[in-house]
């Protein structure tokens, strides 16, 4: 499948929500833990070999499950192959929990649900659609959101 790699590279260079050097193990049998600089930018998780400017790879964080595995490690698995997990080893359980939190929220799908929630709650309080007040009509919303009220 083709994708615009240059843009993905550009995204990887932007300021991140979260970045740290972690131990990372791929999902395949036989993969071993390697030190990687792991960087979260919008809904992509980039991983860099230490001292390299360009990421070795990126994970799009949609349709995925983030779980704490051990006190100091978490996994990222995709719903199409949920047994295949990327494992990340942290320095502390606090760091681990922070990553789990951040990655759980790092999907467009998650934000869409947040939007639905806030819109609905405000509508309950005021009887008005908060998005209309700001001049965002039904058409201005990404398709699915226009059906939420």
């Amino acid at each position, binding site marked *: *499948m*083709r*994708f*615009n*790699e*240059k*843009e*993905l590279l*550009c*995204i990887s260079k*932007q*300021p991140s*929500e*979260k970045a740290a050097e972690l131990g990372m193990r791929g999902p395949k049998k036989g993969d071993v833990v390697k030190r990687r600089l792991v960087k979260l930018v*919008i*809904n992509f998780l980039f991983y860099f070999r230490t001292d390299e400017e360009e990421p*070795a*790879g*990126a*994970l*799009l964080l*949609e*349709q*995925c*499950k*983030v779980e*704490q595995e051990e006190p100091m490690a978490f996994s990222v698995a*995709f*719903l*199409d192959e949920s047994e295949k997990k990327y494992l990340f080893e942290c320095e502390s359980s606090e760091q681990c*929990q922070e990553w*789990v*939190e951040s990655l*759980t*929220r*790092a999907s*467009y*799908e*998650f*934000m869409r*649900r*947040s*939007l*639905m*929630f*806030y819109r609905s*709650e*405000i509508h309950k*309080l*005021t009887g008005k659609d908060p998005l209309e007040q*700001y*001049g965002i*009509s039904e*058409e*201005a*919303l*990404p*398709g*699915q959101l226009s059906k*939420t009220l």
Partner: protein
Amino acid sequence: MLLRFLLQKPKSDKMKLNERSVVHYATCDSPADKTGHLYKKGERNTAYHRRWFVLKGNMLFYFEDKESKEPIGVIILEGCTVELCESMEEYAFAVKFSCAKSRTYKMAAESQAGMESWVKALSRASFDYMRLVVHELEKQLEEMQTLHGLPGTARSHKKSSGRAKSKSISAAAPAVATLAKGPQATYNRSQEETVHFATTAKENGVAWNKPNVVLNGLCPTNQGSKTLPGESCSNDGTKPPPVPPRRKTVTGGVTSTLESPVSPGTVCFSKLHDWYGKEVTALRTQWQQDQ
């Protein structure tokens, strides 16, 4: 010597992407923001090919046809600009990126309405835009709950009130219109164009605080769970989804605005959408005149 050359990682190695899972995302039953046929100009081949497009979030997938099982490719839309363009092809528009040497994707819709609709959808298809809207609503809900003295479902998942909440408008500001005199008009979302708002934000610059996002009891493992936080919350009114993370601006600085009922952030946002609405109206008038 030769061995060393062979073992060196060539710089042209393509970045790995979790392609299989991305393909699954494209084809699974998660909601699409828009689907339809569009003509897409080939990269080297200058012919337009009719493809089936599926927009999900900030990813625009294209398939050979509607029945295809896998996409041919995906255009990651974050940071793009969508422009109408002059072309032999009717209802043409282009998706452009600001980074160096990036490809411009030329497309054409099958009708005026189709073109307008796609241009709008693609202009808004960024993670940053969505995040801006969510932040704004979250803030509104909090304000309302404070004003009404209600138990704060929005507030309850914040840490101590001593922390200044900050939000960067400039990085996330969507379209800044430039209504050109000619037939061209743009929905421009490049970061540089947000200067208007960035200036305001900088004047009220507040040091960026580390985003403290608190779990509100939602199980962090339920990324893929069937229970939507939104749904469960409206039913029992308790657990809202946690706050989406904040983000620094891409200008490298720490421009941000204090969130308060009178913050420029609020004013910016309503101005933004007010003006955005005017932009759309103006464009529509122009198109109608051109008919």
